[in-house]
């Protein structure tokens, strides 16, 4: 069940809860209570990650003997302070991050979507949208300009919206195991094939 913003505001106000929902900086709670929406707007943070195309043969996902063994070698981190712009050119892909640090309790999950106004300008916000119970940190955003003209974005602007929904679990206190927990900057981690995919990818398969 998706939580309406007045319910989200009530959860955010309950700072003494054992396992609270926290969004920092906290959105305007009165506004949340009154807007009657189904999602909370999040803002763009100050860090961006781009890929160094010229150094990359390919992003070989899940290959242990990949020549490009470290994603860190293939990425460039940029800091864009408040009050300055970041220009996203057509077809450019960049990882951004939310300004807000989010703490999701064990009985909630969330998903990230773009904002229709930005989408109509050609700015696509996120594709991997699930936020698991127990998540803590800033959310990495996958920003792409699918339009034909450059788009200027600035840290602090509203960039995406987060829908929260309750989780039906036998034991909601079991902590989530997201590997993207506890980061303030966009995260690009090396992906590993799971057991079955690894079996399938063996040379003698």
């Amino acid at each position, binding site marked *: 069940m998706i939580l309406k913003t007045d319910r989200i505001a009530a959860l955010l106000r309950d700072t003494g809860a054992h396992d609270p929902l926290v969004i*920092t900086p906290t959105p305007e709670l009165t506004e949340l209570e009154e807007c009657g929406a189904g999602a909370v707007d999040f803002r763009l943070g*100050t860090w961006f990650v781009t890929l160094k195309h010229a150094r990359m043969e390919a992003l070989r996902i899940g290959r242990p003997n990949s020549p490009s063994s470290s994603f860190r070698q293939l990425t460039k981190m940029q800091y864009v302070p408040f009050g300055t712009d970041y220009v996203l050119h057509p077809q450019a892909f960049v990882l951004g991050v939310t300004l807000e640090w989010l703490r999701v309790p064990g009985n909630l999950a969330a998903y990230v979507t773009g904002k229709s106004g930005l989408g109509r300008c050609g700015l696509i916000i996120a594709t991997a949208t699930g936020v698991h119970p127990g998540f803590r940190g800033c959310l990495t955003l996958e920003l792409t300009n699918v339009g034909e003209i450059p788009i200027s974005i600035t840290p602090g602007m509203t960039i995406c919206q987060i829908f929260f929904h309750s989780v039906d679990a036998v034991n909601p206190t079991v902590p989530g195991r997201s590997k993207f927990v*506890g980061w303030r900057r966009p995260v690009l981690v090396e992906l590993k094939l799971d057991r079955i995919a690894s079996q399938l990818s063996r040379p003698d398969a």
Partner: protein
Amino acid sequence: MTILDSAKQRVRAFLDEVRRLADLEFPYNDSKDALAVLQALFERKLGRLEALDETNDPAVVSQEASLALRSLFVYLPLLGFVLRSTNVRNAFEVFRPFLRLATQVLEPDQPLSARTTRLLLSSEWEYSPFTYQSIPDLPGFVLIGIPAPESANPLLLPLAGHELGHTVWVAKKVCDQVKVGMTEAILTGLTAKFDEFNQYTRLSLSRPEDLVGNLFALTEVKDILEWAVRQGEETFCDLLGLRLFGEAYLFAFAYLLAPGSGDRIPWYPSLTERVGYLVQAAADWHLTPPLDYEKLFGTEVLAGFTAYDSFKASIADQALRAVFPVLVAQSKSITEAAGVRIRLPSEVTRIGDRLALGVPAEHCDCIADIVNAAWAVTHAGDLWSDIATMAGRKEEVLKELVLKNLEVFEFEQLVKRP
């Protein structure tokens, strides 16, 4: 190639490098402003060199070339400093809050719009944090270098407070407050050990009055005073760091220096003395040093120095001891005049509770509260033990969280501007 040709070429090469650096991505304009000042300075120098030719007096040419060369020696390392201030390993979230603190301390009487302090925070390949002092052509710039491996560690921010102290020492003329007292203490110390002084210097002075009447003796006194003043400056910087950051300064200091390398240099107070002074001032200001703090540090010896150096250092130590209360009072009055309060225990607890919950705190009004809360949280043995994905990388997550907290603090400051 003549001396003049090579001098011009060297300055042109420097200017080319300045222009290349100006194309970097600068998170904050202060570094770029510093480059612009250096560019203007060296363009003037180049102009002076270009105005010379073979018809000029060779002594004039040589003098001008020498001046330009000296400037290159001074300013080339600064270009590297500017370059490293743009590196993304730096904790850029710290920049604006620390600049605000520095401005508050250095220009407390100026209205916000008239404040001119600018800050370069860089990550350097020196183990100890340091500052460039007295750069004549960069007035108003505070330049602080943090060791590269620790440059994203906000828990060490208090050490930048120490480095800021060097700028404050000059700007507030703190030296003038202690120099007379130090000189008197040195003369008293030498009078008490008059025979020993005579033995070391072989000056054969007949009476203590000769310490200031004999030119050679006076040179020795001035040497000791120079060491004492430098010791006084370091101690003042420690006190300012302690005043600005409270117990967090003690933790950061110990993190960086304990147990010590064992070697002392005479123009620094010994580590034992520094720690003793910190603990003494902490008590005066109702701060609580960690239990057995002094025991974290070992003793130091003046390795590689003569017995006379040790003697002079002991006299300089006495001079510092004599003016220590003045330094305590100065650091207190400067921070009070700037309206910088000492960390607030209730705020430290409130922020610490949020960090322990795994979230940044809101509505902070002092970076010292945030950094003290972070240190307090590091001492909680069971921090995030119930969160498998965070428990394994506690130090890393805490740094991320504290930097986010500083950014949230900055965000709130910007949003509430009139």
